[in-house]
Structure formats: structure tokens, C-alpha cells
């Protein structure tokens, strides 16, 4: 087997991974950095982020305001020391991207423009039309080409995180093109593999978003935190789940039900006027909006579309000029994928799974539970999103904490002792991955995958209850059993075998899904994006705590609780809508 010795391994080459690799290269130019990704960097899912990234810029804004919006948006489950660190770093990182060439949209005087986003009290979101993630990703990828110490392993799939004695040693990878196994060894490993939205059927995520990094770390002994908090984005195309950015509403679009009624006023987000105003109606947070849709559906006030029930996202009053200038990508997508001209007709939308608030538990330095292991971006739970992430906090999270992770990893690699992986450990890892390839029994990949997605939609949806969650947990346990018994592959060759990779991804997904379902079962309260029909109010006495899922071999994960760090904002009721000043949109 080919073995590559290096200093820092970054797994995942989306926004967080690229930022980590650049940070490590700048911090320690003599170090060798291996950037490993199962797709070319510019195919990573960061590319699909649309709306923008938050950073305090305007005169009327402040770090405290960003802090308060984030903590209340997260229903007080955020670690406040980390949020404090985060909000102070955001603008600097976005400015750095500007100096690297990111084409942020501008005001007439040449300064960067900002827009409103849900749950944010000030126009704080930096944007590049509605291709913000695309431009950030390409800027980071192209900038990374300046650093000779970054060696890319494009289309290498990580199958196992190798750790011994509580410290990471390396990763085992498949070179996808040839199917050969490659061992990468380093004292520091950064996981930046993104979320796990593909465990659900209707989602906004790319096919690659299969929770690989969470699964890798989980199996190696690191804990997953707050996995029950899954974000439904309220405005997606029914059927495909293709995202219609929150920036639509940030620019002034409205949501109406089948009667043309702005139903959000019935769910604690009104009154309608004066409109627009911050943190009210359509500028409320995503959890509230998706939950309001669920109720509208129950009341029979949604439209029927071929892709399922929907409400209308209406942009028409913004006018063709503004729509084409600020929202070109979604206008194109609505036309192509829904056959709707957003200038002339409202777009049918519904909630779809968008983001995993939870992830590999890390501290503010992005350090995870094993020595030498770091995580950043959606695959991590650094503590800033709590029970509900605010839109535009994650695009800036990937650069703020991508950088921290890269720097921490480089520092660790400079001082850590280097040990190889033991032969027996490596051989068993190798055997596990090759066994899947030789399997000629069992069920088809698509059967198991689709059953998992249905189980998650049915039991771990926007609203949950004990019976549904127990059913989902039981189903996932049996799916894991069936997966272990064997996935029957049509393709048993080595070169570019995507069916084989799919079977490995499904293994990660099943374990991540279990962490979500069991976390949700144990959290007997409603908070942020986690709603229990049988435990309706928030319960700070019992559950103002993080859930921590630990891998337990072939069985269900073990769920523990950990305290939340509260520094300056005591939990109170989350408040949206109400009185407020009319906002002037720029």
C-alpha cells in the first residue's frame, strides 16, 4: 500500500477545508499539508450556498448585537464564549476574502454592501449576488494554488480515521480513479467534510453531503454533539428540495398560503406592518418559519403541487431589475427546475432539510476529543449555532473556524510526537473496506438508503414525538444490521467504483442518523429546531444542556449531557415580530 508521510491532513476541500489548509500553510510554511477530498475542491457543497455571510460592518451594528441575535436565534444552546470569539472574527475573515479577490457586491461608493437575513437585527450579511458560496469557494480554491506546501489529493475518499492511544495517526483513503488504497500519516488531522443532510429524503444538499467526517470521528471515538438539531430551510422547491435562498426574503420577498394570506402573522412573527422590519414576519428565523409551514399544512392552507404541499414565495413586487441583479441564480433555478418566472409568478416552496447544527464536538480551538484531531465547518459543533443556526452564520463560520482549525493543527503538528499506525490496526481497516467490495450477498444499496431516508422523514421530522422517534430508532438499528450483513454491489471492480463508495457513505449516514434520532429521543423538550409534540415547552432546568452521542460499537449510540457555557446572556423567551421600525433596504 502506498504510504504518504505528511504534517497536516485536511479532509474535505470545501470552504472550511481550504481555509484550514491556507491557514496551516501561512502559519508554518515548512509544513507539508495534504488536502484530501472525494471531489474536486470546486465541486464541494459550499458552492451551493447562496445568500451570504454575516459580519458586523455597519455603523449602527455591534458585536453585541450579532452575539445577541446568534444566541437568541440558537435558543440559548450556544456556547457564549465561543459566540463571542466568533462575532469578533467574522468581519476580518470576510475582509480577507475580499483581499483575495472575492467579488462581494458593492455599494455605489465602492464599499461592500450588506443585506438583511432572517433573525438578524441589522443588515449584516455580506453577499456576492446570490452566488456567495460559489464565489467564496472559488476564491479560496484559486488562492490555495499560491501555496506550494498544499498537496491536493483530489478524488480521494477517506474510509477510516486511524487513531491509537487517544491520538490520531492518519487516514486510510481510496484513490477513486484507481481504487487503490493509500495511507496518509500525520500527527494532525482537520475534518472539514460538511454536513449530513442526505440522511433525509427532501433536502437542499448535494449528493456528497453524507456525514463522512462525522462518521469517521464518531467511530474513532470522538463525540457528536447536539445531533438532534437539524435545520429545515423554509423555502425550497417541492420534490427536489432545491434551495430558494433566504436572501429573497432579505431583499423583501413575502410568503403567502394558498389564500394569498401572509400566514406568518399567525405564528408569533407579526404584525405585518411596518414592513419590512428586522426579525419579523419573513425575516424571522428558519426554525419558526418551517414550523409555521407545518401548521399551515395541518390546517389545509397549503397548495398542492406535484412535488408535495407548498406555499408561495412572492418576489414580484421587487421588480425585474432588482431580482436579476440581486437574485440571478435562484431566478434561473426557479425557471429551470420549477418552470416559474419569478418576475411574473410566485414560486411554490416548502421546507427541506438544509443544515446539521450538530457535529463533531470541539472547543473554541476546533480541537475534538482525540489528540491531534480538529474539526471545522458544518461537520463540527464548535458551539455557535445552538438549537437553530441563523442564516449567513455558517458561511462565515467556515472561514473563521477553518482558519482556527488550520492554525491549531499546524501548531500541534510542530510539537507532537510522530507515531506510525500499528500493522494489525491498519490491516483490519483495510480488510473492512475491501470486504464490502467482495460481497455478493445482501440487499441493494438504493433499498437501504431509501428506507433510511423515509425513516428519518417519518420519525425525525420538523415535529417529533416519542412513538415516532422510537420507531425511527428501531428502524435505523435494523438498517444498520442489514447494512452489516452486506450490501450487494453490481460493481466489484476497483477503478472509479462509485457504488462501493456509496455503500461506505451509507454506513456513515446510518450511524449519524442514529445519533440524530437517539439525541432527539432523549431531549424531552422543545428548543429551536427540535420540536417535541409530547414535550412542548422549552425546559431549561432539565435540558439547557448539550447532548453528546458516543459510539457504542454495533449498538445504539450512548447519549450523555454536557453543560452549556453561559457568560452574559441569561436564557429568556425568544422574541420575534412585535413592534419595530420600518427598515430601509439598501
Amino acid at each position, binding site marked *: 500500500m502506498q504510504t504518504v508521510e505528511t504534517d497536516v491532513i485536511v479532509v474535505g476541500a470545501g470552504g472550511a477545508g481550504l481555509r484550514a489548509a491556507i491557514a496551516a500553510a501561512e502559519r508554518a510554511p515548512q509544513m507539508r499539508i495534504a488536502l484530501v477530498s472525494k*471531489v*474536486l475542491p*470546486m*465541486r*464541494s*457543497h459550499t*458552492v*451551493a450556498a447562496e445568500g451570504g455571510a454575516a459580519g458586523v460592518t455597519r455603523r449602527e451594528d455591534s458585536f453585541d448585537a450579532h452575539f445577541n441575535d446568534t444566541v437568541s436565534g440558537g435558543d440559548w444552546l450556544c456556547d457564549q464564549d465561543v459566540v463571542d470569539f466568533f462575532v469578533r472574527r467574522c468581519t*476580518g475573515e470576510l*475582509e480577507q476574502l*475580499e*483581499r*483575495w*479577490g472575492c*467579488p462581494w457586491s*458593492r455599494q*455605489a*461608493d*465602492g*464599499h*461592500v454592501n450588506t443585506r438583511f437575513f432572517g433573525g438578524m437585527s441589522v443588515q449584516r450579511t455580506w453577499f456576492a449576488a446570490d*452566488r456567495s458560496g*460559489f*464565489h467564496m469557494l*472559488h476564491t479560496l480554491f*484559486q*488562492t490555495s*494554488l*499560491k501555496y506550494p506546501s498544499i498537496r491536493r489529493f*483530489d478524488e480521494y475518499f477517506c474510509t477510516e480515521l486511524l487513531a491509537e492511544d487517544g491520538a490520531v495517526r492518519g487516514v486510510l483513503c481510496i484513490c477513486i*480513479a484507481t481504487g487503490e488504497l493509500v495511507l496518509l500519516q500525520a500527527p494532525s488531522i482537520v475534518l472539514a467534510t460538511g454536513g449530513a443532510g442526505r440522511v433525509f429524503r427532501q433536502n437542499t444538499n*448535494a*449528493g*456528497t453531503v453524507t456525514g463522512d467526517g462525522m462518521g469517521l470521528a464518531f467511530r474513532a471515538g470522538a463525540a457528536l454533539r447536539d445531533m438532534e438539531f437539524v435545520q429545515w430551510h423554509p423555502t425550497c422547491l417541492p*420534490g*427536489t428540495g*432545491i*434551495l430558494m435562498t433566504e436572501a429573497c426574503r432579505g431583499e423583501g420577498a413575502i410568503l403567502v398560503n394558498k389564500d394569498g394570506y401572509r400566514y406568518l402573522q399567525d405564528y408569533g412573527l407579526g404584525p405585518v406592518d411596518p414592513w419590512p422590519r428586522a426579525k419579523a414576519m419573513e425575516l424571522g428565523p428558519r426554525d419558526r418559519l418551517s414550523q409555521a409551514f407545518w401548521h399551515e399544512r395541518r390546517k389545509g392552507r397549503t397548495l398542492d403541487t*406535484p*412535488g408535495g404541499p407548498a406555499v408561495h414565495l412572492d418576489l414580484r413586487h421587487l421588480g425585474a431589475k432588482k431580482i436579476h441583479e440581486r437574485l440571478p*441564480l435562484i431566478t*434561473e*433555478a426557479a425557471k*429551470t*427546475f420549477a418552470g416559474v418566472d419569478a418576475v411574473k409568478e410566485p414560486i411554490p416552496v416548502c421546507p427541506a432539510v438544509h443544515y446539521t447544527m450538530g457535529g463533531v464536538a470541539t472547543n473554541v480551538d476546533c480541537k475534538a476529543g482525540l489528540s491531534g484531531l480538529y474539526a471545522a465547518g458544518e461537520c463540527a459543533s464548535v458551539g455557535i449555532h445552538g438549537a437553530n443556526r441563523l442564516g449567513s452564520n455558517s458561511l462565515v463560520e467556515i472561514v473563521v473556524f477553518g482558519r482556527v482549525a488550520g492554525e491549531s493543527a499546524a501548531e500541534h503538528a510542530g510539537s507532537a510526537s510522530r507515531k506510525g499506525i500499528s500493522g494489525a490496526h491498519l490491516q483490519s481497516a483495510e480488510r473492512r473496506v475491501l470486504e464490502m467490495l467482495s460481497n455478493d450477498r445482501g440487499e*441493494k*444499496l*438504493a433499498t437501504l438508503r431509501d428506507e433510511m431516508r423515509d425513516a428519518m422523514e417519518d420519525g425525525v421530522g420538523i415535529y417529533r414525538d416519542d412513538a415516532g422517534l422510537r420507531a425511527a430508532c428501531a428502524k435505523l438499528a435494523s438498517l444498520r444490521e442489514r447494512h452489516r450483513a452486506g450490501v450487494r*454491489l*453490481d*460493481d466489484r*471492480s*476497483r*477503478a*472509479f*467504483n*462509485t*457504488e462501493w463508495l456509496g455503500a461506505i457513505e451509507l454506513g456513515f449516514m446510518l450511524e449519524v442518523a442514529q445519533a440524530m434520532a437517539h439525541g432527539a429521543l432523549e431531549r424531552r423538550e422543545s428548543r429551536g429546531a427540535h420540536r417535541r409534540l409530547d414535550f412542548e415547552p422549552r425546559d431549561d432546568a432539565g435540558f439547557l444542556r448539550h447532548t453528546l452521542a458516543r459510539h457504542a460499537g454495533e449498538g445504539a449510540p450512548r447519549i450523555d449531557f454536557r453543560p452549556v457555557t453561559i457568560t452574559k446572556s441569561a436564557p429568556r423567551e425568544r422574541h420575534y415580530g412585535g413592534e419595530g421600525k420600518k427598515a430601509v433596504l439598501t
Partner: protein
Amino acid sequence: MTRTIRIECLRYHPETDAEPRLQAYEVPFTDDMSVLQGLQYIKDHLDGSLTFRWSCRMAICGSCGQMVNGVPRLGCETFLREFWPGTVRVEPLEHFPIVRDLAIDQSDFLAKLESVKPYLVQKAPPAGENTNLQAPEEMQAYYRYSKCINYLLCYAACPQYGLNPAFTGPAALTLLHRYNADSRDAGRAQRMPVVNQEDGVWGCTLVGYCSEVCPKDVDPARAVNQNKVNSTLDYFKHFLFPRAKEKS
């Protein structure tokens, strides 16, 4: 309404096949199904060994460029209904080596991308500012060219690249122009040698098909061809003032 369409896919496995071949599948489809969804149906239900790249399925990641009935297109935003009752023939993008089935080897493009120094060679921001200032009109000078998602359809459309693989090609030259045209950049002098070489802009004969197939309206032919003027001016500048110091 579900109908059935015949999808022919090019198959090639490096371990077992000497030559590529076509294999046909009968696929049930609805009006909203894309070619990509047709391929996914085949992979899930008919033949798990069919190999193709895909990711975002919303025309932004650049993974699923393919030849669809001989034309370079995106699998995710090309719909099967367009071809019914005829057949759909899906092949890997022209002019690239095949790794397997519909997956091409993109390493040549990546090397070319790197050769054009596709990053800002930085100027210092104005005093008192943490960022550069750039008026919306200044952005217009390059923004269109920054929208390239590296789908590589333009390379499949370019016969010159097919005839001469050393040609830097549309997307890489477009990106080069994107940075040269950016008011914040100071790297023009470093990039002009790439523009000027035989395999730079002069490898283009303005067939123009690259711009025709570009799904993101980037117009690579324009980026390349306006640099023929720049290259000519650059030549005369060096001819007249051979010792002039490079200003960027």
C-alpha cells in the same frame, strides 16, 4: 405521467475494456426528470456499475457535464422530455481522456488553471480601509468572467483543444482575463507571457462554440479574443521599448 425513454450510455472500464461501447437502458421518466436523474435511476435500479460524476444537481457545482446527443451539456438541467420519443445518447465530454464510463480525467484542465495564476496579486487597500474599494462599474469589467463554474463544456466544444491539447483553452484563459480585468489586481505582467504564447490566446481561431454551449453566460470566446488585442499591444510595446520596465 410516466413514459419510457431509451438512454444509451457510453461504457468503458479501464480494467476490462479495450474500447468504449454503448449500452442502452429503458428508463421510466416523468416530465420533471433530468438526464442526471435518468442516470441515477439506472444506477439505483438497473445497473449499479454505471459510473458518472454528480453532486449539487442544481447547475452550480460543475460535476455533471456530458455530451448529450453530441452536444456538451449539463446532465442536471437537461430534461429527458426534450428527447422523447427519441433516444438520449450520453457520452463523456469530448477531448478528455476517459477514466471510466462518463467520468473524464480533468487533470489537464487543473494544470492549466494553475498556470494562469488565478488569484489576486494584491495591491494594498487604500489608507484607512481594510478592503479595496471597487465601484459597481469596475466590477462589471470582470464579473461575468468570474461566473465560470469549470464545467469544462467549453473544452469539449473547442476543436482547437481537441486538435492541440497544449492549448490553454477557454475556461483557463477566461479566468486569466477575470483577474487581469480586476481593478484590485497587480499581476497582469506575470500573466501576459501565458497570454502571448502560441498555446495562449493565439491557439484560438474563434470558432465561438465555447460561448454557445456555456450554461452560465460567461462568454469565454470574448475573454480570449479581446486578449489577442492585448497580446498584440504587448508585443509592440516590447518591440518599441525593449527595456521598458514592466508596469502592471
